[in-house]
């Protein structure tokens, strides 16, 4: 059976790609952020997951608000990035994993999550920045990625209790897949930030750190928040916490925190990097 070996939370902002492209990792501004990553890279290189299930939100590359899926899943063998409007250089394609993707899609719809199923899907910085952070130099082609995209832009959007349940349903779907695959799950984005409005620039360090604590030991507590609570406490884009919550939902067995690095600010956001080791529940 397929086995979820761990979950990772990470930021996905475009400024990271720019910093890496310009070799700024060791500058005083970026060092405290990038210094968090080597232990996570080492873990990935040691454990060698076959598949990454990656929760992210599209920021207007594949999807526009003419049709905005609440939840979408990619089932393709390959995904491409494209110009997002500010000239991030074109990067190598991302490898997909069609069979497990379809299995998850089937399982989710049967489970009451009516996904938008995508055989072609341009993936934006929300997906590519985390991959490049884990395998710098865009060396992520060997790992198969299943994109799961959550609407974090337009209200109504799925509530934390729903995204947590989505994660749990994906966890069950992976457990019922009959091939021996090692799967790691990335929850990307956040943490607290607000880009728009006179309130732009708020960061809530205390709340972010509390969220990381709860992601480890009491994820159910996070499902008590509504999206408007998150907007109020963690900023308009604080709702990206939903991706971290979804990731934690997939970890249906035992978790152990192996590594954490919280740093703020990077660009306008609080950045929460965390590595959780996961042991699948006994059958």
């Amino acid at each position, binding site marked *: 059976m397929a086995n979820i070996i761990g979950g990772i939370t990470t930021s996905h902002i475009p400024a990271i790609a720019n910093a890496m492209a310009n070799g700024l990792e060791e500058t005083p501004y970026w060092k405290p952020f990038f210094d968090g990553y080597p232990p996570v890279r080492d873990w990935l290189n040691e454990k060698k997951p076959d598949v990454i299930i990656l929760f992210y939100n599209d920021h207007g590359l594949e999807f526009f608000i003419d049709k905005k899926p609440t939840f979408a899943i990619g*089932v393709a063998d390959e995904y491409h990035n494209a110009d997002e409007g500010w000239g991030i250089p074109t990067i190598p394609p991302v490898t997909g994993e*069609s069979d497990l993707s*379809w*299995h998850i*899609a*089937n*399982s989710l719809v*049967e489970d009451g999550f009516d996904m938008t*199923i995508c*055989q072609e899907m341009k993936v934006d910085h929300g997906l590519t920045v985390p991959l490049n952070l884990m395998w710098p130099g865009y060396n992520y082609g060997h790992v198969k990625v299943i994109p799961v995209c959550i609407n974090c832009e337009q209200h109504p959007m799925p509530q934390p209790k729903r995204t947590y349940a989505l994660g749990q349903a994906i966890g069950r*779907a992976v457990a*019922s897949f009959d091939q021996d695959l090692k799967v790691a799950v990335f929850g990307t984005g956040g943490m607290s930030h607000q880009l728009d409005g006179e309130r732009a620039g708020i960061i809530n360090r205390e709340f972010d750190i509390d969220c990381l604590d709860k992601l480890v030991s009491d994820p159910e507590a996070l499902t008590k928040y509504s999206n408007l609570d998150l907007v109020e406490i963690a900023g308009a884009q604080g709702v990206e916490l939903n991706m971290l919550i979804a990731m934690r939902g997939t970890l249906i067995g035992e978790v152990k925190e192996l590594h954490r690095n919280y740093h703020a600010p990077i660009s306008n956001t609080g950045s929460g990097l965390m590595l959780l080791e996961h042991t699948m529940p006994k059958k």
Partner: protein
Amino acid sequence: MTQTVDIPGTIMLDGPMATKGYPLNKMCYSFNNAAARNEFKQDEEAYYEKFKLTEEQRDAMRKRDVIAMLEAGGSIYYLAKFAGLLGLSVQDVGGLQTGMTTEEFKAFLVKQGEI
């Protein structure tokens, strides 16, 4: 978990079929556009190549074999656009698939509607 019910004479568009049929369906979806329909008519083989159809799909298209298109992953909504391009009605397509003439197929439909 996955539906694998066998209903004779019914080919379900599920995950494996949707993956297999993607180039064929994408080509037929393009027929929404008049320019695409004309491009196809001018050079069918070049148009298959443009969408990277599998050999099985090209063969089904060449033979206008609807059942073979379905077996190659075709979704009926896109195949219907191809039928439209050929000037065929849904009853013509029904006849082609069941081995009836269009008139026989229409009569078959009428009979099922009778109380």
